[in-house]
């Protein structure tokens, strides 16, 4: 993976004590890291904990990050090691029933969706899935194909461009328009849950 100069700038800012720069790195890579961790830890809640731990380890170690490799490559290794260590520690630890009071008091959509057993969470997830599926089905063919190749198949823009025989810029635009359409369709559900 090539070294991303923007990542390097952010890393340097973090080294100088700028926590907001680290927030941006988290925002940029959290989804990749969660997906990576979930290859090891199947439970979404646990995967979140491991992801948080991995980012925290990265934050602690960032003063020693010299930029020999790309930031993501470095973060990737930390996440893998954290996930493996988590599995080892879990096998040694008895099962604990840990109630997180702070989480239970929060009325956020994240928590409702995360909680697989909550009737509210199940209902909302089903509604979101149904709405999304209806919306994707109603999309123009080129948008549906572009978003499916990206999100379901994990193809890069270059690969999608080759598959669809169009410029990369067109792929980027199609994926965005598909996301916009789906976002518009699911946003009322999310806003309703947030009470806005």
């Amino acid at each position: 993976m090539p070294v991303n100069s923007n990542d390097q700038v952010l890393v340097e800012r973090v080294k100088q004590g700028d926590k907001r720069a680290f927030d941006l790195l988290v925002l940029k890579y959290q989804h990749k890291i969660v997906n990576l961790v979930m290859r090891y830890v199947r439970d979404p809640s646990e995967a979140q904990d491991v992801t948080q731990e991995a980012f925290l380890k990265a934050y602690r170690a960032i003063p020693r990050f010299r930029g020999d490799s790309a930031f993501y490559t470095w973060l990737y290794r930390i996440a893998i090691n954290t996930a493996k260590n988590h599995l080892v520690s879990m096998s040694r630890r008895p099962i604990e029933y840990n109630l997180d009071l702070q989480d239970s008091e929060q009325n956020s959509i994240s928590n409702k969706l995360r909680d697989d057993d909550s009737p509210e969470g199940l209902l909302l997830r089903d509604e979101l899935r149904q709405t999304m599926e209806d919306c994707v089905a109603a999309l123009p063919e080129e948008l549906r194909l572009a978003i499916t190749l990206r999100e379901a198949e994990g193809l890069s823009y270059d690969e999608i461009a080759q598959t669809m025989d169009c410029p990369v810029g067109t792929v980027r635009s199609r994926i965005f328009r598909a996301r916009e359409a789906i976002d518009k369709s699911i946003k009322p559900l999310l806003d309703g849950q947030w009470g806005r």
Partner: protein
Amino acid sequence: MKQVIDEQLSAFLDGELPAAEEELLLRRLERETDYQARVVRYAMIGQLIRGEPGIGTGAGLVQRIGEAVADETAHTAAPARRESHWGAFATAGIAAAAGLVVLTGLLSLGSVSVPETPLASQPVVPQIRNADFQSPADAPIEPERLTAYLVAHGDYAGGLSRQVMASHVVNGTPDVMLASSRGGRPGE
């Protein structure tokens, strides 16, 4: 303009935004929470399409990590303050005071006896002795035992406290004590 930025956000999420565009977008993302929320929603759409569990964790995760980092920063700042000059000075003072209290207790309880040595003749110990205790002031002190105790205590309480306390005893009677017993000032 907004549509252009939203399209950049979409490409940013996919890691497909050119570096030059990303640099500008990062500045916007830093300021605009709406844009951050949009990235999280776009990510959620991907999770929905893939049928992944744990949908909607993005926003909460960014917040959680931010809080954890803030805690981390707070915890690492605290030891730095403790290592300051005043912190070390206070620690040494507390250790020295604790040592004197223990020493007083030992003397008062008669576990050590007062020897007929220059150290035992100093008034500093009787001055801080608790009046409620009946001290065997006439009993002899074993200097080697007292020294060993103070060295051990110094090891326990830290290097600085050892320097403050034990050097007075191990290396001889401090000037302050000698001076006060003679009614003069240190160094005279």
